[in-house]
């Protein structure tokens, strides 16, 4: 049975089912300036690899793994630049994209800055959990860690974000 060629669904269906979550994930990870680029890079990389894919059992986690690599590459590129986190500097004084949130009085720019300051693993785990709505098994697969570690990253990241924004 293993040797039967995989039956890949039309790529359009992947976009219909996961496109919106993928887009939210990229924006949360790379910010409003670079998120769209990361999203496009992910779609192109996925299309390139798709016909040769040998395992179609979890296409969502396959897609998000590609996106995660794009995001990691993006942050590495940013880190090599003279200013350590330019996208945060850029949004620092930008008008808030969200209004005050009940009890938090949180603007979008401020929130981006706080998210950007999270350790990579925590930011990734939070984005996969709450922006992409992935189950912990898939988050662990994308991040290359155990489910327990994925849960721990989400918890730690949320705690840290809450402290940052309630200051």
């Amino acid at each position, binding site marked *: 049975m293993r040797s039967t060629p995989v*039956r*890949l*669904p*039309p*790529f*359009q*269906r992947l*976009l219909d089912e996961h*496109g*919106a979550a993928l*887009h*939210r*994930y990229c*924006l*949360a990870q790379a910010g*409003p300036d670079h*998120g*769209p680029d990361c*999203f*496009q890079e992910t*779609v*192109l990389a996925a*299309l*390139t690899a*798709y*016909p040769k894919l040998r395992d179609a059992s979890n296409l969502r986690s396959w897609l998000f793994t590609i996106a995660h690599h794009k995001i990691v590459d993006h942050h590495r590129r940013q880190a090599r630049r003279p200013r350590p986190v330019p996208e945060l500097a850029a949004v620092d004084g930008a008008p808030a*994209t*969200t209004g005050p*949130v*009940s*009890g*938090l009085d*949180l603007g*979008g720019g401020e*929130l*981006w800055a706080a*998210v950007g300051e999270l350790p990579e693993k925590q930011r990734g785990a*939070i*984005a996969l*959990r*709450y*922006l992409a*709505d992935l189950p912990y098994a898939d988050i662990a697969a994308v991040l290359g860690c155990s489910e327990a570690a994925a849960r721990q990253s989400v918890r730690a990241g*949320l705690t840290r*974000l*809450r402290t940052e*924004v309630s200051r």
Partner: protein
Amino acid sequence: MTPTRDPLVDALRAAATGDLAADLDAAIERAERDGLVDIGYEVTDSPVGPLFVAVTDAGVVRVGFAREPVDAVVEELAARVSPRVLRSPRRTDEVRRQLDEYFAGRRDRFEVGIDWRLTRGFRRTVLERLYAEVPYGRTVSYRELAMRVGNPAASRAVGSAMATNPIPIVVPCHRVLRSGGHLGGYGGGLPAKRLLLALESGEAPLL
């Protein structure tokens, strides 16, 4: 879908909203430029109902009437041609424009490439002959078409070639009738066949 009502999480989701449609469109445009889209499809309105149109690098590969669910046709294309199937107004634009002109009575032949790969053998031979030799406004019987491909006893096989034509309208199986002028069958339904024949005979301006 939202796993929690945490205001922090709500704020994160609200902040992470951008223009998905625009970003997706830009991605697909780049993918097409890079040759990563093997089939582009779109559904277009016509006097015979919504028409599914799919185009590859070689040309039109599939036209479908509304009675075939789009999802099923797209699945079929993914399995038989390539899984890199994407909705694409750009890729299908030229064919859809020519279909519009055809239905407006301003076009009597299609100037598009044809990708024949969804048909083969005898059926393909018959369809290619039909496409090349039976022009706008003419009709032919199943038996006559069988004779033209050198197999006069094969009218039944010609009938099944028409019934399985992957590119109706462009490859004009509506021009094939039973002997004696009876309509015969049609994948898009007999009202559609009648309408196409009326259009081509100049009886009924459609638009």
